[in-house]
């Protein structure tokens, strides 16, 4: 029975996602948590494209999450753009440009260097946002981000209730997942996995792996930027910590807990992480201690993560 469920989900991941998350807000203790799971799930999904599928361990994905959040936030709160799509587009644009520039530098080095460089560049952006208080609000965060109504051909919907916003985010994340599925199933997606498995061989096959890695980096940045933009809408404020290394750490933990390199894993990981955080923080202030210990145990004993281990059992 359990095996059948795992197999069905693995075969039709986007459909399975849509079915589960259509009713998700009524399953979890409160709706705010459901929206958070959706958005962080998308963040982990975008991160997984780079780490899980291309094999590049980034420790600086707070950069694209934060750029997406600031792009969307600044469009709404500073530039008074009244369009929801325009604001999310601004976030995507900023995250994409950031991905191109940082990717260009980081991809000059491989392996462990890459991890450290991505972390360093994310910290650079954090400090810039911190000091550029006129634009970003600095230490206080960017305040006054209000969600404009959703305009679709023929209808205009106000997203002022938390449930309405949840279903808006649900629709956006589902579309993003379809796009990601399309990317991974394409020949390009296959090359990404070839690079992960053996980059020298991919070069020998005639692929320009530097260009492909950069493209993967930018795609990943775009997904994470979209997630960041949605989070700015969810919170109504962009905290400067969006760009801080702890945010990068969170997405690494979520992706690994769920299972890097599996399509559904990052969502499982984000759900696990956020529910754990939610439950533990009620009991103890030192909840990061337990998250840290659980994460260490996963690296040591369960490196495939929850979903990855379930999938491996099928074979």
């Amino acid at each position: 029975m359990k095996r059948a469920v795992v197999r069905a989900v693995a075969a039709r991941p986007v459909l399975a996602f849509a079915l589960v998350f259509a009713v998700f807000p009524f399953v979890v203790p409160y709706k705010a948590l459901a929206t958070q799971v959706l958005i962080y799930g998308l963040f982990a999904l975008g991160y997984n494209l780079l780490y899980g599928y291309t094999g590049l361990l980034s420790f600086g994905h707070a950069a694209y999450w934060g750029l997406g959040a600031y792009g969307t936030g600044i469009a709404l709160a500073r530039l008074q753009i009244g369009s929801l799509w325009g604001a999310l587009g601004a976030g995507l644009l900023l995250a994409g440009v950031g991905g191109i520039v940082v990717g260009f530098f980081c991809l000059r080095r491989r392996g462990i260097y890459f991890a450290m460089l991505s972390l360093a560049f994310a910290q650079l952006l954090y400090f810039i946002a911190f000091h550029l208080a006129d634009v970003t609000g600095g230490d206080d965060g960017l305040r006054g981000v209000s969600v404009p109504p959703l305009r679709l051909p023929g209808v205009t919907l106000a997203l002022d209730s938390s449930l309405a916003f949840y279903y808006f985010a649900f629709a956006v994340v589902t579309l993003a997942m379809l796009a990601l599925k399309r990317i991974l199933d394409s020949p390009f997606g296959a090359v990404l996995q070839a690079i992960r498995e053996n980059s020298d061989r991919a070069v020998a096959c005639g692929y320009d792996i530097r260009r492909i890695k950069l493209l993967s980096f930018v795609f990943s940045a775009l997904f994470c930027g979209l997630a960041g933009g949605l989070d700015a809408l969810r919170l109504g404020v962009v905290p400067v910590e969006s760009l801080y290394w702890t945010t990068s750490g969170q997405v690494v933990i979520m992706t690994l807990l769920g299972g890097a390199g599996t399509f559904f894993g990052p969502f499982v990981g984000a759900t696990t992480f956020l529910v754990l955080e939610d439950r533990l923080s009620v009991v103890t202030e030192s909840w990061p201690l337990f998250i840290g210990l659980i994460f260490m145990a996963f690296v040591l004993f369960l490196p495939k993560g929850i979903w990855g281990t379930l999938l491996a059992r099928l074979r």
Partner: protein
Amino acid sequence: MPEISLAALAAQLFTGLVLGMIFVLLAIGLSLIFGLMTVVNFSHGSFYMLGAYLGFFLVGYTTSFWVALVVAPLLVGILGLGVERFLIRPLYGRSIDDPLLLTFGLSAVIIELVRLTWGKIGLSLDPPRALAGAVNLGFGMFPTYRLFVIAVTALVLVGLWLFLERTNVGLVIRGGSRDSLMVRALGIDLRKVWLLVFGLGSALAGLAGILAGPMRSVYAEMGVTTVIESFVVVVVGGMGSLPGAIVAGLLIGQVVSMTTFFAPKLAEINVFLVMALVLLLRPSGLFGEAGLME
């Protein structure tokens, strides 16, 4: 631009030198560990922080800064031995990313444990009375404690150099970072050397922590930004290169100190700009060998 007095500039250069020394100690530990076992130790910053906290505890317990200065790095070194033996060793042969991920988790655990033990509020560690005050060096007054930090670091560096260049173990370490397979083929048990080097690198981080304690504030997250800056130092100097770590550490120290003086807002940012510049012009770092340990 306002008139800048030479004395102020000299003082700032000096501050940069002291800061650079702390970076050198941290970067050498990181670089030694990386060079030999291609492990990036994210918890290096937590070991640095732990050095400062243990220093604080030992000063209170033994009432002697000198005892603390020796014992705190030793304790951090022993912790490093345990981490290598029980946490890193099972990961050899797996992806090169795994030790980084593991030590990232460990770092969060150590930070929380320190918060539980010593509380959330930062502490202040006083320099010993013998090192209070300032010394006139002829071209300005300099805090005695900071001169002491420079002297201790220089001594440690000389000692380390002698150890690596003049002892058999040092020879094995150098050989092991060049070609570990070859060294093992010669019948040397490299696992003992890895253990030793991880402990040594951790102890150096602990020493940097207790030395930095009286100059900077001591708090649980103090290691995180510092470890990222130390990564930058290692990248600029060239991974696995000890001269690189020293030159880059001193350089980054000056960059931080000079920009703090001329443009305080850019202090943290310029460090990363230097790194980006080095990456553009010399991707393998100032002293790194191209192609080595990419």
